[in-house]
């Protein structure tokens, strides 16, 4: 019964499968392989403006197809990658590129991670210089206390068991 309904629905289904999204005109790669490679590389950095977090390289949306066509046309017309990017930003804003612009408002974004690492290394080096490098062991009294804390765990403390110098 259900199979029959499916059979009867098949032509409708074929329509629905195509109608679910407006069929984008299939992509026509550029005849020049280097130009096509440049276009493909750009597609990965351009955001599909109606999608959520997708590059036009991956998006099946119609708009993404239009944007791909636009970029291919510009590249075929001899525009440089930078010119294509500038043109996209003019049309859609900074939002369209997955690479955020480097300007006063985004310095923290771009340089923050490296500044953080440099700062941390500086602090560590200053502290290392201030502190005596002598390796102070736990005092016997502290050792006893640690053993006491760990006693109910029926454990032998194996000091530095993973040291590469053990057992030599």
């Amino acid at each position, binding site marked *: 019964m*259900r*199979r029959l309904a499916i059979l009867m629905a098949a032509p409708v*289904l074929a329509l*629905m*499968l195509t109608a*679910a*999204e407006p*069929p*984008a005109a*299939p992509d026509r790669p550029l005849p020049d392989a280097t130009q096509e490679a440049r276009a493909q590389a750009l597609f*990965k*950095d351009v*955001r599909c403006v109606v999608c*959520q*977090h*997708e590059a036009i390289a*991956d998006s*099946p949306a119609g708009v993404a197809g239009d944007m791909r066509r636009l970029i291919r046309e510009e590249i075929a017309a001899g525009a440089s990658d930078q010119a294509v990017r500038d043109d996209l930003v003019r049309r859609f*804003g*900074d*939002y*369209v590129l*997955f*690479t*955020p612009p480097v300007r006063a*408002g*985004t310095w*923290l*974004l*771009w340089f*923050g*991670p*490296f500044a953080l*690492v440099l700062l*941390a*290394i500086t602090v*560590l080096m200053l502290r*290392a210089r201030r*502190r*005596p*490098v002598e*390796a*102070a062991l*736990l005092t016997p009294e*502290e*050792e006893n*206390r*640690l053993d006491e*804390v*760990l006693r*109910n*765990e029926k*454990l032998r403390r*194996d000091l*530095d*068991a993973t*040291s*590469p*110098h053990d*057992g030599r």
Partner: protein
Amino acid sequence: MIAELGAFALALALALSILQTGLSAAGRARRSPVLAGAAQGAALAAAGAIALSFAALIYAFVVSDFSVSNVAANSHTDKPMLYKVAGAWGSHEGSLLLWCLVLTVFGGALARARGLPFGLKASAVATQGALGSLFLAFAVFTSSPFTRLDPAPFQGASLNPLLQDPALAVHPPLLYAGYVGFSVCFSLAVAALIEGRAQTAFWPAWGRWVRPWALASWAFLTVGITLGSFWAYYELGWGGWWFWDPVENASFMPWLAGAALLHSAVVTERRGALAGWTVFLALLAFTFSMLGAFLVRSGVLTSVHAFAVDPQRGLMLLAILGIAAGAAFVLFAWRAPQLKGGGMFAPVSREGALVLNNLFLTAAAATVLLGTLYPLILEAASGATISVGPPYFAATFTPLMMVAFIILPAGPLLAWKRGDLPGAMQRLAVAAGLAIVSALAAYALWEPKKALAAAGIGLGAWLILGSLAEVAERARLFRASAAETLRRLKGLPLGAWGMTLAHLGLGVFILGAVVETGFKAETARALSLGQSVSAGPWTVTLDEVRVVEGPNYLAEQGRLTVRPSDDRGRASTVTAERRFFPAGGQTTTEVGLDFRGLDDVYVVIGERAGSPQQPAWVVRLYWNPWARLIFLGPMIMALGGVLSLMDRRLRVGVGPRRRKTA
């Protein structure tokens, strides 16, 4: 009736959690084992109540009780049983209940943990109860999955078909076990700050108590993220596996913080040092988990995966995050200066290497945080909209991690307190030489020539070989007799094997990620029957397209032959589908995957094109070299985590039931 039982059990769990907090805090204040014991009982009962509530929700899904609005919105009678059950955590309400389940089960396990001193345990149980109370109150008052519909619809709206997939059915439980498992580390950290032990002797023991929870959570999270990534890879049909999407980042931040915590806790355990920092990371890991919950559920971010776009609930989650993390970090700021540092160490030492590890992992987490939140902050501050995507992370996150990976293999070869760097480098000379040779070979042999990819291959090889070199060093391979080497290998603690596996898995992952990213090829073409398309060394021919009927969908199924373009090697057949789900009116793709050694041949069949006389289908063909390693590597890492967890030395401080309940 069952749904009301579930709602009642949920409310009961809230009451029990509040009771747990109050009793445990009172027990701590009065030093009363009776009160503290009652609090532990309440914690176990709360876990039981939530388990009952969750079972009630699953039952409602299994029997398709559409009078429950959550079932009506997320299920359908035609759905296969696995996805009916998985539908229970496919929505905001259901997944929040899962979150609460994991939170209380971990809370119950913490209540059963042995060997913790009275005060610390009572404070930790109270903190865990407070966390439970916050999230359970949120579930009860805003997000109960048990609200009824009247009249009940005859059919449900079904689960988003993209989520109807085996990997995604098990992805949330594992992911949440990881996310929420960090809550115990959070509670133990808060408890340590409350107890404010100034004695140095306290911290090694504390490091040992917190480490198994961190290990278990991190291993769960590793598997959860990998499954999610694998799902995105083969279900979304875009040929990729990670796109620095905000929701991906939300799961990655606690992972990075958790990885840092694991390493830092080792230093605290062994040497009593870095106590304040380890406490900070323990707080940070769960804070990132809560931040992730907020980002995913509030709709402040646009993402492929965001669900429950509801600003009102988002605001409440932000409040929960603010209360929990705010209180913890204020406590930290107040007490941290009193934490006495433990053992001293020279900059070149095992401790020093682990400090560097922490530095880079934390900076990496900060980078991900910055990249995820910056667009929001910038838009709020200046109205400017930007997108932060893969190129940003390639320029910031990747170099930071590369530096960390170059240092990594030396760490385990340095002794505690004061290490011998030239000695360590000497022992790594063979590994370094082989890694450089593999990078050069990759550059010379693989077309197109890519210097960065070749360097990445060298880095992956360096991690793998460096990890092996460390084991060889410990076993005194080639320097002692074979019997002696074998004896030494057998004598290595599981924790050491765990570390080796985790680092080796990281190297495997890097090899896969670098080769896949650097050398993959893709082609898209409209194919009529009998036509072919090629990508990389593979050619795919479209043999047949037919309409097939699934349990709750109809599909156009393409049968394609995959064979090497040079015709040397076997041909195989794959099927790729484009499914239409009438219940929700959505279309999804089922990727055709042909596993060829480490490589994937990945076929997506798209919409019908061409004329009615000669129909054609847009076929996208991807050649993803070494893609298998991308998912294998993290699994090896997680296995390393599990091995470490099974180490005799870590099995203390946790009840024997821990692994069963987690």
